[in-house]
């Protein structure tokens, strides 16, 4: 059957309008994979971007405190490799077969770890953040919507560095203005003095550049990891919608965290508490569907950005927090400026405290 000439442009238009995140879903499937000089790398669940790999030196950008890395070598060819993990918790260890390696800091980058090891065959390596295998409460920070204030974000990081309890920062995105490579590499340079890792999905302000840029520098757009049994799902809603394939992944994450605390982060609020403003999902039906999923999945908290203020509210019974205090043009007349959230969570009891830390 002959396809009319107008079919493909129309199909492209419809797909770009209706499934705007499809390209990012495809890229997520490729995160953490590389091959060089006969050696292949696969980071489990795509939790780290392979920034460089030449068969001897592997450089990763981590998007989770713990990583599992499968290295496949040609049979009978032992190799000595160096693995540098950026955005890594200082003091992390690397399990290589029966050997536990201590990390060596990378020059000038507080949250970077380096390891050197020799493999005699294919092996799975396990990077573990200090304390990740322990029980007991811990504290993490939520920071989003830095955008054009990247030049002063170091002030926020300095405040975070004064808090010894913080384990890591999670973000719903809008780290920069448009998402071009120059901005994102600048942001990663600003992260260098931060003493803890910073895990993020994208916001709408990262949509101004081809998705390959984020894919190469940060890795996954959608992330799920566990820390002390507490689940963290960072979900891409950069276009005011979540791709259907990501919903499938989210269903799995919700299922795996049903009996343990679960934090979900996404940039655009499904429903803006100020409804007339419409700063939420492009479809209220989809928003309700997501909230119903999160409620049925017994999510402990939903962290959101996009709106440059602070709101705490409940949607579908899910405690929800909008925190867009990274420095982007603030909402006025709301009594709050730059800030981040400091969240204490107990793996056996859920969230114990959500506190606003004001910078200005």
């Amino acid at each position, binding site marked *: 059957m002959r396809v009319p000439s107008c079919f493909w442009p129309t199909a492209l238009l419809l797909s770009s309008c*209706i499934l705007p995140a499809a390209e990012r879903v495809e890229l997520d499937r490729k995160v953490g994979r590389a091959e060089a000089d006969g050696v292949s790398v696969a980071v489990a669940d795509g939790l780290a971007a392979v920034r460089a790999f030449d068969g001897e030196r592997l450089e990763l950008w981590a998007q989770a405190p713990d990583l599992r890395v499968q290295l496949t070598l040609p049979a009978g060819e032992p190799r000595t490799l160096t693995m540098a993990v950026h955005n890594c918790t200082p003091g992390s260890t690397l399990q290589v077969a029966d050997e536990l390696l201590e990390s060596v800091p990378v020059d000038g980058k507080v949250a970077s770890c380096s390891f050197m090891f020799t493999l005699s065959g294919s092996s799975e390596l396990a990077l573990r953040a200090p304390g990740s295998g322990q029980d007991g409460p811990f504290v993490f920070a939520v920071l989003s919507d830095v955008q054009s204030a990247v030049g002063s974000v170091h002030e926020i990081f300095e405040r975070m560095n004064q808090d010894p309890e913080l384990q890591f920062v999670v973000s719903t995105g809008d780290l920069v203005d448009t998402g071009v490579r120059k901005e994102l590499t600048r942001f990663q340079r600003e992260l260098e003095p931060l003493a803890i890792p910073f895990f993020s999905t994208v916001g709408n302000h990262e949509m101004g550049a081809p998705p390959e840029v984020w894919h190469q520098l940060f890795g996954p757009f959608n992330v799920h990891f566990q820390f002390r049994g507490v689940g963290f799902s960072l979900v891409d809603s950069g*276009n*005011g919608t979540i791709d259907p394939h990501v919903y499938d992944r989210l269903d799995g994450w919700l299922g795996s965290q049903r009996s343990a605390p679960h934090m979900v982060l996404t940039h655009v609020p499904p429903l803006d508490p*100020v*409804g007339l403003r419409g*700063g939420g999902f492009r479809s*209220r*039906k989809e928003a309700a569907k997501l909230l119903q999923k999160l409620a*049925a999945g017994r999510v402990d908290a939903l962290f959101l950005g996009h709106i440059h203020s602070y709101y705490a509210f409940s949607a579908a019974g899910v405690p929800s927090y909008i925190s867009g205090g990274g420095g982007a043009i603030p909402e*006025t007349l709301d009594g709050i400026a730059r800030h981040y959230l400091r969240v204490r969570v107990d793996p056996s009891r859920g969230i114990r405290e959500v506190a606003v830390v004001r910078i200005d």
Partner: protein
Amino acid sequence: MRGWWLGAFLIATGTWPSAARAQQVHLETPQLALAEEHQPGHDDAWLRPGTLAAAASVVPSFFLHGSGAFLVGDRKAARRLAISEGAGLAVLVAAGTLIYITGSSRRLVGSLAPLAIGGFSFFMIGWLADVYAASTGGRPEATAPNFVPRLEGELGYLYVYDPQFRYRSFLVGQADLRAGAFRASPSFATALDDDNQRVALELAFRGWGRSPSRVGTDGSFAELATGLRYHRFGNDGFAVTTPEWHIDGRLDLARVGPSLAGSFVQGQLGAALELYDFDAPGSRISDNAFGLLLARFGFGVYFGDGGRRSGEAQLYYDHRHDDFAAGLGTAGIAAGILGHVGMRGHYYVTRNWGVSGLTELGSAFVAGLSLRYRHTPREQG
């Protein structure tokens, strides 16, 4: 995107071929004195209305509304369109700037957002109207029906491609029951392939314009309306009840200038409150009430002479995010903000029976076709 709009508009409304036909008839049939008389002053015209004038005006008109009307000699419409563009842009820029610098303040955005959409609507409608003026030079023979039926209804099929939901096919129906200046409009949509149903009732009072009991000069009107919707998503575990209030209006553009005869603008502004009922522990409806801005504007054209064979088509933007088409998927700072675009129309092929169709694009693609009926007293048909 703009090209798509224009192409769709010209093809859908038939102004392109009809303009060419109008020129041909104009040359060959002397009895069309009315049309001749109505044409904007030919002495002032740079181009005859038609494809060439439309093509020549489409880009300049985007920047300076009225260029198209000016090209075909309608200075009155040109001046008014330019003024409306200036007013629309001024409101859009002022409201948009305030929204930007206040970070969409919760205390101001309820007032500023409708202004921004209103300004944008003035801009877009003025542009479309100007291209219409250039392409047709006005179609005075095309008017709104010269009566308003007491009963009008339709029943049909609606296809909805929304990747987030299982449904695709709906049976849809709607009726307009009018008594004097009052209207009651019940409607329903029920999925044929999913557990999804929507029912709604709208009540309206027409304060100005033609009604079953009032003679009007054209199709212009203003209405106050209130409504209640209930939409159940059985397989997805939630339902939403939406009370809403809005004002609706239509203005026949023949009032603006002769080159715009046969076209109209239509708008809606209001607010709704969405009350979500989730099938989730600890979820209360009172915690799940979210406001919704209702804003809609469109540019349309009439077909026929307002008698038994007549109809209309309309291109529109609808800001509502809770409809089947919901909002467009845009990148950047506009993510999630825009509503959907659409095109709808109907045509009565006999005094009582006709067809209607619509297509919309937002987060979903929507297309529908319905059989339409109106009860027409013989003296009106």
